[in-house]
């Protein structure tokens, strides 16, 4: 039997989750698990989401997070839990976050463990208003991450209005960074700004030892990527740590 298959309404596709760890390579421990939506047979996210009609996406999104929380709790999560969040208009988003809070309460997962990942592109539409909105929930202890940082057209200026708990460097910045000057310069600058503001930097999509070493030498200590662990279907996978030199 499957652990956490959910169905939002009759017409919604069935779905469940895979989990990919975000590791702290200095403490050598899992810092968080990101919940990634999958089909019941481990079909990729796009295949599941592609079946959801546009007008149902928000409700579906909301429902999936509750299922992810339930599943992660049953798996015995003891670190942070990163969940994707698709903000729409602020009113609808408020309702959506409230159901997530409710799900956390029901499963006795402390709210402080929840990290909502918002993509950069979504955040920038109305930064000031969004910041105010988000801060309400941060007052309850919920954490926020900016996902895919560096993939869009907004960059560091985002941090002027809103200082999230985490910034996730997009894999397009991470790819082959050990030999790519412009990417190095951007990551250094972003890393410095985040450090100065008390924001955790997570390098996403790390695939090679070379990428990892360059980032680690620059002061990044939180990593997500195939190099450490692939997303694992309905479970928390073992982590492969890289030996330090």
């Amino acid at each position, binding site marked *: 039997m499957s652990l956490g298959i959910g169905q939002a309404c009759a017409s919604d596709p069935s779905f469940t989750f895979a989990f990919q760890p975000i590791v702290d390579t*200095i403490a050598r421990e899992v810092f968080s698990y990101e919940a990634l939506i999958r089909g019941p047979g481990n079909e990729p996210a796009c295949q599941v989401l592609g079946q959801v009609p546009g007008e149902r996406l928000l409700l579906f999104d909301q429902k999936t997070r509750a299922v992810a929380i339930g599943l992660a709790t049953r798996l015995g999560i003891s670190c942070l839990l990163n969940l994707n969040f698709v903000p729409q208009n602020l009113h609808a988003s408020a309702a959506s976050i409230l159901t997530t809070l409710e799900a956390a309460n029901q499963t006795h997962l402390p709210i*402080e463990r929840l990290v909502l990942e918002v993509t950069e592109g979504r955040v920038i539409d109305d930064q000031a208003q969004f910041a105010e909105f988000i801060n309400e929930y*941060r007052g309850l202890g919920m954490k926020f991450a900016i996902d895919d940082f560096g993939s869009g057209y907004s960059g560091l200026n985002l941090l002027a209005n809103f*200082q999230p708990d985490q910034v996730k460097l997009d894999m397009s910045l991470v790819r082959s960074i050990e030999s790519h000057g412009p990417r190095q310069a951007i990551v250094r600058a972003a890393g410095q700004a985040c450090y*100065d503001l*008390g*924001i955790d930097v997570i390098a996403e999509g790390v695939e090679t030892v070379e990428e990892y070493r360059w980032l680690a030498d620059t*002061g990044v200590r939180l990593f997500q990527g195939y190099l450490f662990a692939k997303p694992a279907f309905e479970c928390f996978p073992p982590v492969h740590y890289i030996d330090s030199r």
Partner: protein
Amino acid sequence: MSSLIHLIYASVATQAFGKAQLTELLRQARATNERLSLTGMLLHSDGSFFQVLEAEPAVVDQLYQKIRLDKRHEQFTMIIKEPIAKRSFASWSMGFSDVSPKELATISGLNDFFHGGSCFNKLDAGRAKKLLAAFAVGRWRGNIEGAERQGNIAGAERR
């Protein structure tokens, strides 16, 4: 439950702060803060201040206004102001530490810094602690010699 925020700023002293001046400053500040249900911590290092103020929004704003008018320091940098779920310095009307830049700079990882019954003890891994770490490696300070300016992002965590 009422809402809480913290405001974290750095400033530069306009006069020498010896033990006597610091003691007097703290005595006064703590008395006021207790009345205001304001908690936090103050770090002094060779003419640089770093302070965390935690309370209800209006209380923090008012006190910060007042502190900014205090001629004993200048060059204010408000680093962050945001809602918090709980206080990091709940039992401190104003925790305090006076450390030399050298001592600050040699902190390897924050745990050394947080040992021994100070207000920094068991500080959770939240924003206040991280900003304190940044301050410890020279960020948010005036022109401090030897302050880390470039290169490694997380100077304090270097292996």
